[in-house]
Structure formats: C-alpha cells, structure tokens
C-alpha cells in the first residue's frame, strides 16, 4: 500500500555520463550553500543579543520585595502545594523584634528553594501566591555543568533592595490585567 505520493522506488539504474562527472552536482550544492550566506540568520548571539519574548513569557522566578524593601513571601506553602513538579520547598521562621524592615509579615521563609531541573515553568506558583511574592519573569534560566547549582535558594531568587537591582515584572502583570 502506498502511504504517500513522495515515496520513490529504489532502482539500481546505471548513472548517465553527466551524473558520472559529479561536477554539476557539486556546483549545485555549493550554490545552495552560498545562497544561505546571504539569507537572514535563524539564530541570535545569546546572551549579547536577546530574542524578544511575549509579555506573558514564563522564565526564571523572582521573589519580590515591597516598596519598603521587605520580603513579601510569608512561607504559606501554597506555591509548594500547587507545584505539579514539586520543585519548591521552604522552611518558615518567625520574625524577631528588629527585623520588621526585612520581612513584611510575622512569618517569613528562612529557606526557600526551587529545583530548576524539576520546574516546568507552568506559573502555578505565581497563581497560587496570596502575597504577590513569587513571579515568573522574562529572564532565562542560565545553563550550568553541575546539578547542585540548579537548586536556587533565596540568594538567587530574592530581588535586591536597591532600585536598580529590582526585577521589573510590570510588563507581565499589565498583560494579565483585563481593563
């Protein structure tokens, strides 16, 4: 039974004189190669050049701080229970007196880890978060040679306090807004 009309029956036919020269075939092959030199490239030179992504792109996570620089995350565990890949683990701790400028609520995440090898970047953690603490950003997950380096702790996830080290997520949140 013939499945497609593109199949060709293989025959052991004798090559013609032109085919036996090979030269025209080499030339036509080279023409294709040279044509591609002048075509637009399919790849970009990452990381010098970054391909634009959709406003709702789900890349590397960030743990946000509020305007006063206090961590939003209160270790409620809803992201971890929502996570279908079970990539998130956390340990909570109680805020001490004098730490009010560091953490927004009386409980905070002392340890917060995302296993990036497990993460499928579905964004359910962001959806589950009641405190607007975790967001997915347009940043890419950097590659690494060591598996242990893919477990991102708070040192890699929490954004900085200073204005220029904040991670902008407005593009993403505005894209979700209905009005």
């Amino acid at each position: 039974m013939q499945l497609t009309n593109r199949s060709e029956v293989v025959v052991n036919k004798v090559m013609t004189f032109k085919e036996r020269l090979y030269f025209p075939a080499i030339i036509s092959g080279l023409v294709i190669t040279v044509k591609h030199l002048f075509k637009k490239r399919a790849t970009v030179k990452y990381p010098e050049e970054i391909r634009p992504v959709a406003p709702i792109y789900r890349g590397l996570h960030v743990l946000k701080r509020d305007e006063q620089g206090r961590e939003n995350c209160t270790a409620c565990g809803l992201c971890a229970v929502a996570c279908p890949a079970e990539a998130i683990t956390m340990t909570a701790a109680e805020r001490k007196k004098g730490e009010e400028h560091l953490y927004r609520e009386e409980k905070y995440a002392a340890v917060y880890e995302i296993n990036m090898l497990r993460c499928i970047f579905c964004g359910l953690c962001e959806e589950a978060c009641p405190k607007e603490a975790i967001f997915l950003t347009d940043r890419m997950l950097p590659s690494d040679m060591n598996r242990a380096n893919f477990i991102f702790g708070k040192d890699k996830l929490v954004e900085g306090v200073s204005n220029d080290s904040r991670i902008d997520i407005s593009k993403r949140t505005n894209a979700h807004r209905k009005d």
Partner: protein
Amino acid sequence: MPKVTIDGHTIEVAEGTTILEAARMIGGEVAPPAMCFYSKLKTSGGYCRTCIVKVTKGSEKDPRPMPKPVASCRTPVMDGMEVQNKTAPDLVDARAGVVEFLLINHPLDCPICDQAGECHLQDLSYEHGLSKSRYDFKRREFDKIDIGPNIKLHMTRCILCYRCVKVAEQVCDSRVHGVLNRGDVSEISTHIEKALDSDFSGNVIDVCPVGALTDRTFRFKSRVWFTKPVDAHRDCKKCCGRSVLFMSGQEVLRVSVRKDTWGEVENTPEGNPGWLCNECRFEKKSASDWTIEGVRNIDRHSVISQNKYLEVKNLKIDVSNQKLIGEKAHN
C-alpha cells in the same frame, strides 16, 4: 420517640435531641456546620449562629413554621418537625450573612496562621463567604499573648465561641481564663497574663475552631499539608494516650487529639472523650515515645491529603518481565 424530617430524610430520635444532633445522625451534607457547638462539652453552642436551619413545620400538633431561622444546636426536635438546611436557598443565604459577620473582625491572615488547612472558619468562608470583605472600618486589634510556655493566643482571630472556656471548666481541674469585657471589645484572656498550667489545658488548641489558640511547639514549623498524620498511642497515666502525630520524616512536629467527621475529639473504646494531657501533647515529641498504628485516614478533599503518595516497601525491578515489584506500606 419524635420523628423529624431534615432535608427530606426522616429519622426517629430520642426525646430532647437537638436538630443538629439529629442531622448529624443522618450525616453528610444534611448536618449544618457548627463553630461553637461541641457535643462533648456541656452547655456549648448558641453563640455563633452558623448552625441555623429553617423549620418549615413546627410539629405534628402545631404545624406552623417557625418565623425565623433557629439555631439547630439549641432547638430540640418535636414529633413531625420538618427542617430545611441545604435545600432552602434563603437559609444558605442567611448563613452566608452569618459567615460575613464572623469574618468582620477576622484578620484573614491564613498564609501565616498555623490553623490554615484544618480551620473550620476557613472551610466555612470558602463555602459561603464573599471573596472580598465589605467591611471598611478598623478591625479589632490585640497583641499576641503567650498563655504559658505551650499555647499562643491570637485574639484577633477569635470568634468568641467559648469552647476553650468550656474545656477549662469541664476538662481541666481549674479555670484560669475566660472572657473579659463585653460586646465588641470582649476577649478571651487569663487575667493579668497568667499561664494555663492545668494538665489538660492543651486541649483548648484542639477545640478552637479557628487559629486563635495554637500550639507554640508547632509554631511555624510546617504547614499542616506538608506533614504526614499517623495514628499513635502510648501508655499514659493521666490521659487515654490516643493521638494523631503530625510527622515529617521521623520527626514528630505536633501531637493532637483524634478528631471525628465533625472536627470533634473522638471517643476512646471505653466511650469517654479522648482528651490528651499536656505531657503527651507537648513533651513526647519523639517517634520512639509512641506506638505508631498507621497512617491516619484523611478525607481526600482535605488539603492535608495533597501531595501524599503511597509508600512502597521492598521495591524491586524485574528486568526480564519489565515489572516493578513492591508491597504497599500502611494504607
């Protein structure tokens, strides 16, 4: 014996049974929720109004309906009484109003609260409440108090159900706490920060339907849905020693009483409520102190059953037949 019909289910109950108890005998959705009534504590109930039901027929002798919804925990059944709970849309609406009132002063700090996941107010507001509060005024504010070394009181979360006061009266040997002040400013407290040090004072944590009284030894240790509840017992001279251990690995994070379908303490085989003493609850925090009976059966709709897998013992791979061989541990 009076016959009562609740949501179309007829049941014959003993004289003096309340509508709520009759509904619980039928079971399931028919039973109205209760925040303050606790069948194992005498004189409890009548405060929260979440158990209201609509009585469409008073009794066989006087078939007039009752003019207003009644608190089912305090209303005894009459012969031929007809009651509507879930089947009356106006009643469900009225209960949603009650829930909104309960939530007026509640801080809704569930992400922080240790009770989240097993909180009756959380379930109730999820089922009936609005997703947003309509209350614009300032909520009651109280400082957190440590009542003794083991119990934390968050008065802002309290709904004044009086269950803990009844525990102190009926289970503990002495009552050192109660409700101070009146009306909007009333609060559960020990007068001038006294500690609750009765042997059975830890039970106030288990009867609290919200997160007002929580276990300090479990404070912020873990979320309840990350723990693994197992039934366990030990020989204790003071109490029955039957408990649920909330474990993480081999570590016992919290010890609580066994609770039945209605969130109340289970009876022991002898028929007494299985209250736990403070020694069992707060000091026996090692798996070797207990005889573990097996994994506790948790309702699969509960968040506590999330992300729990069956344990498999002696896992082997049969290469020639491409099969996994193992035996299930516990249930």
